[in-house]
Each structure stands twice: as structure tokens, then as C-alpha cells.
């Protein structure tokens, strides 16, 4: 029997929503951490969020500013964030400026000043901002070198039971070979880059002693609430899967239900593919309205139209989405387009689903979603969509996705992406030419765990929504969009 008692590591919340998930539970108490990144990447803001979230009378915080951003400016701008709590300043949060000591280029003096102030205040949280500005180059003159400085500082801070952060202006390439970074218990990198017209910000927990951080780069955004994190990994899909009772539910379109074999299964993903103007959004609106009518709250995530325009279009079909939203049965998610990350979008949708207990979701359209993504995130599009669909359908939420098809008429592809494997049911809408008119037909390509119609049936988009008609049994060559009439009649 082993009687030894392992030490328990207390973890402090980062103060940044979802960042704790990335860190593996928060910042370990009394750890010595480096937060590094280029100027403007959010280091100071992240450190302030941690400090204001954790500073109490029992756990006072001390924030040293060196030669980076002047304290005057820093306090001016940090006040703009909602987490900044003026009542804590000069109370449980204290700031100390090491500008004078740093200007001497003598790290020994900087260290002495830090130690003196720490002895005076006895903080449990210490932040030194920023670190690279302390580097005087090689200490050939016998003064304390930066490595010795950091090592001594780390030892002092550890012995004083303080959770410590050094903020450093380093590019990621400079980190890997730098022995300084081996001393730290935690190492969080923050990077930002402009990708065409979009700013992409990401964090990575390269090291976190005592924790099991989530690997890889995770998107962050800086808003008036400070840094917000959007972890890349949702829980593995196997963990999310719940037992969903096989139950057919209506799409809200009688003829389509019939073609699908009685409706779709709860927890399915239905892909509606079709060319522009073929009624995909109409089908989506009917799907969500049908759910609301049956007491199933819904989320409409729209990526093409603005919310007012979308609501107007639905109203023209006799569906008052605004009223549904007022009654708490619908939430419309419209995420700021053109610089989205997939993770941010996923969390916005997931949060809306959680808020109203949604049972149905429409993504209208995934073509628009992809267009709204910052270029750097487009390569993760399929993987992220897979995770979103897995997370939602695994929890029993039924999703209808629309996608615009732009392929030539004689090419029977469903979508511009290989996404059909992500969904359970696929409905294809098509135009065809007949008697000098552009008409529409739809067909069901696949369904999960049930048989479906293989018919091509005409449909019309009416003022009451989509009305599915009869099978186009007297036409052949519909896929070419220029069919011929059977029995030898001309086109």
C-alpha cells in the first residue's frame, strides 16, 4: 500500500471563456508561465483578464510594466474592456512601473526592484510585461544575463507562492530553440496574421506542466469583452453521441416527407442541394417552422442574407420567424461575415442551441458560410463542418443544410464539396427546360436506414412554400435539364 499523498495542483481560471479548456483546466497555481507573441497579439489583455478574474484580498495581484506599453496608455486602453474592474485597482490589483530600472540595462536592478516590491505587497499573482524589452543583449560586462535573470526571478516567485506570468514579444520561430522557455511551467503562444483582408488570431499551449492542454492552434478574437477563445476541438463525437430514439419527423413539406420514406429521422443531417433560386431557403424555413409548430425550438444560422431580409422572405411565405423568436422558440444566428473562423461559428451555433434547447437547426447556406470564412480557415472547413454536424446530430438535433450547386446541367454532382458523406439524407433540386419555361424538379439521392423514393418529381415555390407535385414520368433526360417527352414526342 502506498501511503504517500500526491500534491494537489489547484488551477486558477484564466478569465477567458473557453481558454481553460485549451489550457487543460486553467493555469496551475504557483506556476511560472510565459505568454509570448508579437506586439498587438493580445498578451497584455489576456494577462489583465486573468488578473482581474482572480485577484482578491487573499490573492492580491501585482502587475509590473517595463519598457513595453507605457502604463499610462496601458491603463487607458485596458479600462475599455468590460472585465476591467476599477474597484480592484490600487486595492487588490497593483501596478508597478520598472521603466527607470530597465533603462539602466542592468537586469540585477530590475530583479532587485521586483523583489522589493513583491516583499512589500506579498502578491499571489505576479505579471511582468513585457519580457523581451528586458533583453540587453549579451552580458559581456559581467552584469546579470537574461537567462540568469529569469531563472532567479522564477525561483524567487516560486518560493513566494505566486502564480507568475512573463509576457514576451517573441515570434514563434524564436521560441523553440531558446533555453529560456525550458524553465517555464507553462508556455502559451499568441499569434496574429493578416490573411488577405482578415485578421487571424490564434493561441497555442505549447507547454503546460501539470495539465493536459488541447494541442494545436485555437482561434481567438479580441472584442470589448477582451480575449475570447474558440477551442478547435469539440469533444470526440463518440463522447457526445446520445441514444436518439429512431423517430420520423416531418420536414414541413408533405410531398417531400413522402419521398423521404415518411419524413427524416430525428438526429439526421439533411442536405438540400440546388441552384440559385430553386427554393432551398424556402425548404429550410418550412423545416424550422414545422418544428416550432410541433413545439421543437429551432436555430436558423444564416450566412447569406441579412437577418431583416431573411425574416421578410420568410414572412412572404406566411412564416413569422420574428414572432417565433419573441416566443423563445427560435434563435437566428447571424455571425459577422467575411472574417469568421469555423470554431467561432460552431460555438455561436452551439451556444444558441444550448440556450433555447433547439431540436432543429438550419445552416443556410454552407456555401455562404464558406464564403464568410477568413481564407486561412477555409482549409479546415470540411473538418469543422464534420465536427459541428457530429456534435449536434449526436445530441439528437436534426439539421438541414443548404448548398448551392453551380455545376453544368449535364454533370450530376450534388455539391461543390465532398460533403455528402457528412449528411444522412440528400435532396437535390434542379431546373429543367420545358415548353419554353424553366421548371423545377427534385429527387432524393439518399436516406439513412430507410427506403426512399427514386422519383423525380416536379415542385413549385408558392406563396405558401414548396408544393411537391407528381412524378415526371412522361419525360426522359431530366438530368440534362433539356428532357424529351416519352412516346416519341419532340422535346
Amino acid at each position, binding site marked *: 500500500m502506498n501511503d504517500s499523498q500526491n500534491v494537489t495542483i489547484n488551477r486558477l481560471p484564466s478569465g477567458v471563456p473557453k481558454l481553460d479548456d485549451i489550457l487543460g483546466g486553467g493555469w496551475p497555481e504557483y506556476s511560472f508561465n510565459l505568454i509570448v507573441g508579437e506586439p498587438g497579439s493580445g498578451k497584455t489583455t489576456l494577462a489583465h483578464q486573468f488578473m482581474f478574474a482572480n485577484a482578491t484580498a487573499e490573492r492580491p495581484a501585482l502587475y509590473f*510594466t517595463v519598457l513595453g506599453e*507605457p*502604463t*499610462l*496608455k496601458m*491603463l*487607458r486602453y485596458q*479600462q475599455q474592456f468590460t472585465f476591467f474592474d*476599477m474597484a480592484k*485597482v*490600487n486595492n487588490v490589483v497593483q*501596478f*508597478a*512601473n*520598472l*521603466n*527607470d530600472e530597465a*533603462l539602466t540595462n542592468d537586469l540585477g536592478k530590475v530583479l532587485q526592484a521586483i523583489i522589493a*516590491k513583491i516583499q512589500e505587497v506579498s502578491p499571489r499573482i505576479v505579471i511582468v510585461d513585457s519580457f523581451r524589452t528586458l533583453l540587453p543583449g549579451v552580458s559581456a560586462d559581467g552584469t546579470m544575463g537574461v537567462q540568469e535573470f529569469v531563472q532567479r526571478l522564477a525561483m524567487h516567485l516560486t518560493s513566494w507562492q505566486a502564480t507568475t506570468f512573463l509576457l514576451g514579444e517573441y515570434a514563434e520561430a524564436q521560441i523553440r530553440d531558446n533555453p529560456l522557455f525550458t524553465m517555464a511551467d507553462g508556455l502559451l503562444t499568441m499569434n496574429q496574421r493578416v490573411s488577405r483582408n482578415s485578421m487571424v488570431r490564434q493561441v497555442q499551449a505549447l507547454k503546460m506542466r501539470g495539465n493536459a492542454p488541447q494541442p494545436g492552434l485555437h482561434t481567438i478574437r479580441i472584442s470589448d469583452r477582451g480575449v475570447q477563445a474558440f477551442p478547435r476541438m469539440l469533444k470526440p463525437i463518440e463522447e457526445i453521441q446520445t441514444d436518439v430514439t429512431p423517430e420520423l419527423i416531418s420536414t414541413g413539406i408533405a410531398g417531400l416527407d413522402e419521398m423521404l420514406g415518411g419524413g427524416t429521422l430525428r438526429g439526421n443531417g439533411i442536405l438540400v442541394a440546388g441552384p440559385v433560386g430553386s427554393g432551398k431557403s424556402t425548404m429550410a424555413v418550412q423545416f424550422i417552422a414545422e418544428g416550432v409548430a410541433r413545439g421543437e425550438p429551432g436555430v436558423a444560422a444564416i450566412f447569406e442574407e441579412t437577418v431583416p431580409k431573411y425574416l421578410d422572405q420568410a414572412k412572404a411565405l406566411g412564416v413569422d420567424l420574428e414572432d417565433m423568436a419573441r416566443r423563445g422558440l427560435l434563435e437566428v444566428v447571424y455571425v459577422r461575415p467575411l472574417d469568421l473562423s469555423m470554431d467561432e461559428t460552431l460555438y455561436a451555433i452551439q451556444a444558441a442551441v444550448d440556450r433555447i434547447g433547439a431540436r432543429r437547426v438550419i445552416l443556410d447556406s454552407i456555401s455562404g458560410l464558406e464564403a464568410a470564412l477568413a481564407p486561412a480557415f477555409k482549409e479546415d472547413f470540411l473538418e469543422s463542418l464534420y465536427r459541428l454536424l457530429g456534435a449536434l446530430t449526436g445530441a439528437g438535433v436534426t439539421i438541414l443544410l443548404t448548398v448551392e450547386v453551380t455545376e453544368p446541367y449535364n454533370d450530376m454532382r450534388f455539391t461543390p464539396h465532398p460533403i455528402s458523406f457528412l449528411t444522412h439524407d440528400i435532396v437535390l433540386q434542379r431546373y429543367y427546360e420545358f415548353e419554353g419555361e424553366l421548371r423545377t424538379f427534385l429527387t432524393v439521392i439518399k436516406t439513412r436506414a430507410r427506403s426512399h423514393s427514386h422519383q423525380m418529381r416536379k415542385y413549385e415555390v408558392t406563396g405558401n412554400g414548396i408544393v411537391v407535385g407528381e412524378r415526371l414520368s412522361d419525360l426522359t433526360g431530366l438530368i440534362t435539364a433539356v428532357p424529351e417527352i416519352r412516346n416519341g414526342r419532340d422535346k
Partner: protein
Amino acid sequence: MTLSAPSLRRFVRRALVDATGVASPDRAQLASAFDLLCERLRQQLQPLFGTTAVNALYVRAVHVATEEFSWLSEIVSNGQEPCASDRIASVEALEIDALAEGLAAVLAHNIGLLNAFVGEDLVLPLVQQAWGVIEAPRTEGEP
């Protein structure tokens, strides 16, 4: 709350006179009180903002106050020797009241600049703590 310059000026002037310890101070006493308040304020601000920033704000405050009280340029340090008041006591041509008003203007502008940068909620407690005064400046119209 946004303090108007006049009410901040009145607050500083009261603090200045109080620091002399007499109801009707003479030039030397005013000069000494100015030095005291100026130095205490610096000591309060330097650990937070650093010497460079504190000096820069003081120089700017003197510059702005000099536009109103031109004689300040001759007797108040431009920042090389912050708060030095040796010359103040020797200026006999000035009325005591004008001298007090001018000196109060320097400190009030110094505080006003800080207010503009980081806000009264942060600055005024520092000033009260530095000068050991409980009273806070009042805005116009307040009793």
C-alpha cells in the same frame, strides 16, 4: 463624473492652503506647500507610471498653466528640477492670491492630464492618498 477645470482648481487650491497649515499663508509658505504637494504626488505616481511619464506630464502641466499665468515660466521649474520652488518665494511683485492661483493651476493641470488619460476614478484616489485629504473635488452645482 467629469470634473470641470474650475472645481479641480478649487480643490487643489484648498489643498495647497491647507498644506501651509495657516489660513493666510505668505509666499514662502505657499512655495513650500506647492513643493510638498508636488513631491508627494510624484512619489505616488512614479511607481505606477514611471519617472519619464510623470516628468512629461508635469512639464506639459506647467506649459498649459503658463498660457494662463505667464509669470509661471520664470519661477516654476520646467521639469529639470521638478517641484523646485526656490524662485517662487523670491517673487515679490505677485499678489499672494495670484501666486496661489497660479501654483494651483500647475497641479490641477497635472491631475487633469492624468484624468484625461486614465480617468478620475483611478486618479483622484491616488491624489487623495498622496495628499492625505479625504475631501474630493466637486463638480459644478454640487454643494
